[in-house]
């Protein structure tokens, strides 16, 4: 009996099925907790799922690589999802054209402010070069951030972790900061969240206000594009 169980365990821990199922179940639990406890921004479903999975893997002694063999099927969808961002961008195209100049200036300044302040803070407090390079693209959605990180010599998996924590920080404290600097225009509030904190910031903006949500989605898409185009170019100019 226990020999059978052992064989089943050996089979399951090596098959993609376990990692894939664990990912979906943990995320569903995360969503359920988020909904049940009043949709508090701190109870981010991604955060809950990551903690649950990392805990399960540590307790059962399965390493990350084995888990990722299964979870990569979910991870792979980030590519097509990035392509799909063209659709909300197209849907908002009328609105974009009307405030195009304000959007463009705020995008370039905001994107640079996020990336440069991140790099400057890591450097000031004595972080390593790998950490600096992995931190630079952390404001944009993870498929783009990981691609940029890889190109400039950062660690894509470390960047992904920074991207997710950035989103969780913004979702929890963004409203407070926006009130602090007294910005009342919903378009500006949403755009700030989208530019600085990608999809997780956008999800938070959508919870609060529809206009803010639309501009956050726009900010996410535009900053993804701006960062993908400008950051590798900037890096090659500075480091050669």
């Amino acid at each position: 009996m226990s020999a059978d169980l052992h064989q089943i365990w050996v089979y399951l821990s090596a098959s993609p099925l376990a990692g894939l199922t664990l990912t979906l179940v943990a995320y569903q639990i995360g969503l359920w907790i988020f909904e049940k406890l009043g949709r508090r921004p701190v109870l981010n479903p991604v955060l809950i799922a990551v903690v649950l999975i990392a805990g399960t893997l540590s307790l059962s002694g399965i390493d990350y690589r084995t888990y990722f063999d299964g979870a990569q099927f979910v991870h792979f969808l980030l590519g097509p999802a990035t392509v799909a961002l063209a659709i909300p961008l197209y849907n908002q195209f009328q609105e974009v054209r009307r405030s195009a100049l304000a959007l463009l200036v705020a995008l370039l300044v905001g994107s640079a402010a996020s990336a440069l302040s991140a790099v400057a803070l890591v450097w000031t407090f004595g972080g390593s070069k790998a950490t600096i390079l992995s931190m630079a693209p952390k404001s944009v959605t993870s498929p783009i951030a990981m691609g940029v990180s890889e190109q400039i010599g950062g660690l894509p998996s470390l960047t992904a972790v920074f991207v997710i924590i950035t989103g969780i920080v913004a979702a929890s404290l963004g409203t407070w900061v926006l009130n602090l600097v007294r910005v009342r225009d919903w378009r500006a509030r949403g755009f700030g969240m989208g530019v600085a904190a990608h999809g997780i910031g956008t999800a938070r903006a959508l919870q609060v206000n529809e206009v803010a949500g639309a501009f956050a989605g726009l900010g996410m898409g535009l900053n993804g594009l701006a960062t993908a185009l400008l950051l590798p170019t900037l890096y090659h100019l500075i480091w050669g």
Partner: protein
Amino acid sequence: MLGTLTLLLLCQLAGELAARLLHLPVPGPVLGMLLLFAGLLLRGGVPDTVQDTAGGLLRHLSLLFVPAGVGVMVHVTRLETEALPIVAALFGSTLFGIAVTAKLMAFLLSRIDPRLEEEPTGEDRP
């Protein structure tokens, strides 16, 4: 749904090929997104099936972050030894970025397009 998935993958593949062949410093999926956006502009609208499938994929966008997020396990040592710079940068730059972007955007909008809290018309929806 199958057609949309094929379309998304074709755009991504074309983007990857273009990025590699032309040595562009841009991730393939981003070029794929630009390609699809250009296609939608040419066509002048999003087909319903594409709208639905893409909407479904993007609604669960945060699920797709989970496998990469679990990668935090691999980086525990680095996160411990560089805790101060990492925490300072993540909190400081994220909140600074939100504040700068929103404040500047609000200032510019009040100059060129002062419609403070008007609802969008939704006329661009298909």
